[in-house]
């Protein structure tokens, strides 16, 4: 039995795909990494183009300013790496700011354009007396995609943002949330996925979503 195990282990390791979590100085990489590990993924936290190219999936997390994030990605030479990865039909997941960067422009950004992989823009919530901004806390979502298989309609996930995406093509919207308006809180187009909420902070529901993502590969 012992030699069999010895052979089996390396093979198994080779068979599990590798996820690159892009570390571009935009916060909270740690939680995403741990959550993916708990879901059984093999991960690499990196900002090296050659390492990211060798991975099967990309996760782009991030909180903070749109301009800073795009400038960091440019500086690290990662914009083309991400675009090549997506063109090659390999799975990509953007979380929070990482999702917003997929779009063409943002009201927040004065200097830079987004990755432009999805058509549309990122807008700011308008604060009202009964609508505090940032949208912060647990809100229920309406799911409309097989990607969210096993996630009940009305499940609660954790949000923490002042901007939200407004896709030009409604067909990319796979989940919506209501905060003053109905907005797209998750998008998908072929191999590209984006979540405005934080699956890595959304307890069991969030971990289940990440598990589904890992299974794409």
């Amino acid at each position, binding site marked *: 039995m012992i030699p069999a195990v010895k052979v089996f282990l390396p093979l198994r390791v080779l068979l599990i795909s590798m996820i690159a979590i892009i570390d571009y100085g935009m916060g909270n990489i*740690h939680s995403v990494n741990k959550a993916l590990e708990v879901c059984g993924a093999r991960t690499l936290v990196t900002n090296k183009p050659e390492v990211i190219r060798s991975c099967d999936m990309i996760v782009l997390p991030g909180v903070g300013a749109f301009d800073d994030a795009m400038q960091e990605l440019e500086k690290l030479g990662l914009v083309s790496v991400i675009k090549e990865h997506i063109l090659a039909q390999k799975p990509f997941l953007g979380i929070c700011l990482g999702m917003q960067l997929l779009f063409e422009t943002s009201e927040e950004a004065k200097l830079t354009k987004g990755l432009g992989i999805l058509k549309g823009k990122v807008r700011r919530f308008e604060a009202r007396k009964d609508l505090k901004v*940032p949208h912060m806390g647990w809100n229920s979502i309406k799911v409309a995609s097989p990607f969210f298989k096993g996630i009940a309609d009305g499940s609660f996930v954790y949000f923490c943002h002042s901007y939200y995406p407004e896709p030009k093509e409604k067909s990319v919207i796979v989940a919506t949330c209501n905060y003053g308006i109905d907005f797209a809180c998750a998008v998908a187009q072929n191999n590209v996925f984006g979540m405005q909420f934080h699956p890595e902070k959304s307890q069991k529901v969030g971990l289940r979503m990440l598990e589904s993502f890992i299974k794409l590969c």
Partner: protein
Amino acid sequence: MLTKRIIPCLDIKEGRVVKGVKFLGLRDAGDPVEVAKVYDAQEADELVFLDITASFEKRRILVDLVEKIAKNIFMPFTVGGGVNDIGDIRNLLNAGAEKVSINTQAVKFPELVTEASERFGSQCIVVAIDAKDITDPDNPEHLKWEVFINGGRTPTGLDALDWAKKAAKLGAGEILLTSMDFDGTKDGYDIALTKTISEAVSIPVIASGGAGKLEHFWDCFSKTQASACLAASIFHYQEYTVKDVKTYLQLKGVAVRL
């Protein structure tokens, strides 16, 4: 619908939970990770860790702790206590904290709030305000609160309402509002204070100080614009679980996550 949040608060000293936590069935009641897991199971919406360590080693210990918590629980948490500069904030966020709370340093150097929110986003910068009632007895109609810093030891002369508005303008994404008059009394939240501040700012306000009964949470949510209620002793001494509070609030018609 965005739900109202119930947030247990844990005081941390030298990397351990203090304040007489009496959880049953815990291997080590002082381990923040173990305590966090208990609250996670009770469906707490967030956690707040307030570091009260005075030692020199403080920052490293706190960052280590945040890493350990983030490895073990997948829920949002805020860390505060002695946050001095951009470097402290960056380290805590990178270690896995969702939000960082700034108190004394925000009053002393308001530009820190702006710099931090521009760099990391407003959504992760919480300004904590400790407020004390200084209403003139001869003019009881005109309620006034003063901001205190250094753990409530130092008066600042700042009006709490003015400071809250300014903090929001500076870029804070949330206000953690503690009533020094009600804190620890278990007589309920300071409704007048919470109402005044939460109606005046467009960012979320967390009410803190005074929770002792289930009714106090309902009082706060029904009479003020608070987005969340923070509580410590009511949960630590196991009078109620977070779930008890949320079940009660749901019966009252408050939107909670259950």
